[in-house]
């Protein structure tokens, strides 16, 4: 029994770690998509951020400067997306894909040119990484049954960015539902013309939304290369941006529901690692590929009818054109 709890705890523990970039990216996508801009480029922005964080951290030796660089690069990419989609009214999916391809190619090219390690950045150590933080009292209560174990193993012992990621969810909720900016953000994703006739600039509002998305993707990228891992590895985002997008849709573009979807998808991923090579009773070995595909399958199946219709922001994907 206690062994089962230990396995469960460690699976949940890795769920939290795996979910962190998903949560950050889902919140990023929420800002962008609620404003009416499809954000398929979460993946690319995160990857660009990851490279920038690792590269700058390895040079400066500071994880925090690396984080700033990640945010800077990611915001620049978001602005590029904005320039194509908002100012020039381009196709948002094409622009997002272009950003993903750009990030995927450019990170490796620059990595080889600068660090000569086959696209990787040098291994980070010391202050160049985000390390786990033991929350106060974690050791002291570790022996208390259940609660102590949950606190010391599950809640304590993550790096700062993990806590930051979970903190962004209530903050996102608060911004979207409790502030003037949030009201306008939700409005512009539904009916930009109404926003325009109300005397608000649609362009500026949407630009601010994609900048928010850029900031959060940058943090997610920094987490990948300087928190979860100790270097940038080519293609290290590995589709997490797309899974985050699926979680966002799964959560019907709402912060709390998207968080739960991210945790669910994170749990599936943690389970994949845990079950690798393990014989389950009755089923036998579960193919890894199936487990990896599960988030997507789940999204498609559940959206197809089990959780009701996911109503997207009405104006999503449609560039705003003022003159006829």
């Amino acid at each position, binding site marked *: 029994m206690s062994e089962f709890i230990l396995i469960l705890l460690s699976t949940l523990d890795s769920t939290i770690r795996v979910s962190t970039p998903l949560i950050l990216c889902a919140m990023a996508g929420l800002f962008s998509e609620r404003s009416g801009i499809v954000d398929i480029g979460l993946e690319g922005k995160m990857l660009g951020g990851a490279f920038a964080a690792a590269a700058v951290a390895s040079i400066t030796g500071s994880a925090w400067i690396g984080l700033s660089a990640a945010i800077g690069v990611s915001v620049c990419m978001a602005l590029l997306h904005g320039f194509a989609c908002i100012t020039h009214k381009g196709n948002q999916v094409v622009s997002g894909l272009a950003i993903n391809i750009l990030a995927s190619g450019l990170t490796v090219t620059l990595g080889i040119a600068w660090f000569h390690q086959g696209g990787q950045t040098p291994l980070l150590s010391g202050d160049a990484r985000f390390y786990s933080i033991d929350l106060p009292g974690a050791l002291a209560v570790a022996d208390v049954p259940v609660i102590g174990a949950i606190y010391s193993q599950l809640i304590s012992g993550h790096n700062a960015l993990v806590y930051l990621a979970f903190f962004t969810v209530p903050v996102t909720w608060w911004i979207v*539902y*409790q*502030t*003037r*900016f*949030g*009201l*306008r953000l*939700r*409005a512009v994703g*539904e*009916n930009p*013309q*109404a*926003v*325009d*006739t*109300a*005397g*608000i600039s649609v362009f500026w509002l949407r630009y601010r939304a994609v900048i928010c998305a850029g900031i959060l993707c940058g943090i997610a990228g920094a987490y990948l290369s300087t928190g979860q891992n100790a270097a940038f590895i080519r293609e290290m985002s590995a589709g997490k941006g797309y899974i985050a997008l699926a979680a966002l849709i799964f959560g019907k573009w709402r912060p709390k529901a998207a968080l739960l979807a991210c945790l669910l998808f994170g749990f599936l991923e943690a389970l994949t690692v845990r079950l690798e090579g393990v014989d389950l009773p009755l089923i036998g070995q579960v193919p890894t590929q199936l487990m990896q595909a599960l988030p997507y399958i789940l999204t498609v199946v559940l959206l197809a009818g089990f959780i009701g219709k996911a109503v997207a922001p*009405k104006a999503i994907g449609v560039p705003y054109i*003022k*003159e*006829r």
Partner: protein
Amino acid sequence: MLTTQNTQQQDSLSPAIDLRKINKSFGPVHANKDVDLIVAKGSIHGIIGENGAGKSTLMSILYGFYEADSGEILVNGKLASITSSKDAIRAGIGMVHQHFMLIENFTVLENVMLGAELSSSLKESKISARAELARLSEEFGLAVDPDAITGDLAVGLQQRVEILKALYRGAEILILDEPTGVLTPQEVKQLFDILNALRARGVSVMLITHKLQEILAITDEVTVMRGGTMVASRETSKTTKQELAELMVGRKVLLEVDKSVAQPKEVLLEADNLTIKDSAGITRLDAVSLKVHAGEILGIAGVSGNGQAELLDVLSGIIPVQEGNIHLNGTTINAKNVLNAKDFRHLSLGHVAEDRHKQGMVTDFSARECAIMGFQDEPEFNGRILMDNKAVTDHCVSLMEEFDVRPANPHLKAANFSGGNQQKLCMAREIERQPKVLLVGQPTRGVDIGAIEFIHQQIVALRDAGNAVLVVSVELEEVMSLCDRIIVMFEGRIVGEMAASDADAQKLGLLMGNAGSDDQASTQGASS
């Protein structure tokens, strides 16, 4: 022109709006040419004109949607620079657009305060907005539940939200663009009461419409636009419907349909308990039964979206019969004997679709291609392998001649014809074959007065030749003057039937709103 009937404002001399020599071009199209307009304070000023006369462009300039190429705008006697909606709002101008500028999933309160929130915290903004909204509702008699979801409200109430939105921003000049198009006659009356209340409190109202009736009913002054210029201004009390119509069109027009008494004969089209459910399982047509006789025009009246579209679709074979039967020229069509639109055409049924851009034509195609749509497989247009291009072009030329389609160029893209000429082309395509049964949806939507006259004549001529015609229209006047017998639809059901000679707007209006259910809706809104 500065005199107004409103005594409260006589002391104030400068007009609310003074437009001087406004010009605006879109490429080669000169939409506004040296337009001058003066709107007196505290008056209701009507602006009337056909489609493309430049009314909407002028109002868009006033509300900052477009910028004029040249000209001056004076608001309350002061020169105003209006380059965005924000400037217009600041100058005290509010606009109720034809298509409402509302966020459907927001509450009324959220819609009203959007863009005019008092603080960056929504909570605080809502508290002050709620108080202000209550005050405005009280003062102008505009009761709406601030916590209702806007999309759930009846159209008339949504329009109130739009008016409240403008008032909340401190508008003293209110522009209404075609405000009555989507309203029932009862809702129109309520709107006019509101406009009168606004005028009494010194608000200047500009009413853009193409409906002569409304201009005469509510305005103090009326300005007529034609071809981008102001052609005349009249005091409403000193003009007539006939004069305004002639000013709009630029020649004498016949407002009433000229027709003899119908001679109905055998039934050519019969619907028997037709029920249609949409993909979401919602009943769109509910056991509809009707008969259309040879030699009569049957009109279907009703507010848009009450099953008329589905009725036309099922009667023309666009959607299959689910329950019930259609008897068309001796053939029975039902769920067991499903026929498609082409089969319906071969049973001598013509269909002029309600929405010509979606169903009636492909606007990117040339006129000659649009003129054979639905008949493209007929042997007369086809050689052994390729289409007979010459036959197609000749066919289009003869249709254009017969129905006076201008410009008479069969190779021009359909999108480049005016609404009236597009409609004439669609009409020509269907009527030319002298169908036994003709279905016409919104015969004159987006069609100029001059063309309306012609289209009505063609429909009557087809009837007089002994064919059956079914007309669906949301324009009550059209249904009453064109049709011989009228059926009213509400929520997919037939709720009334009468001879056109017995019908009046009051009777039909009550049926269209299902006997005053709108009043209930508005009191519900007020009570909570």
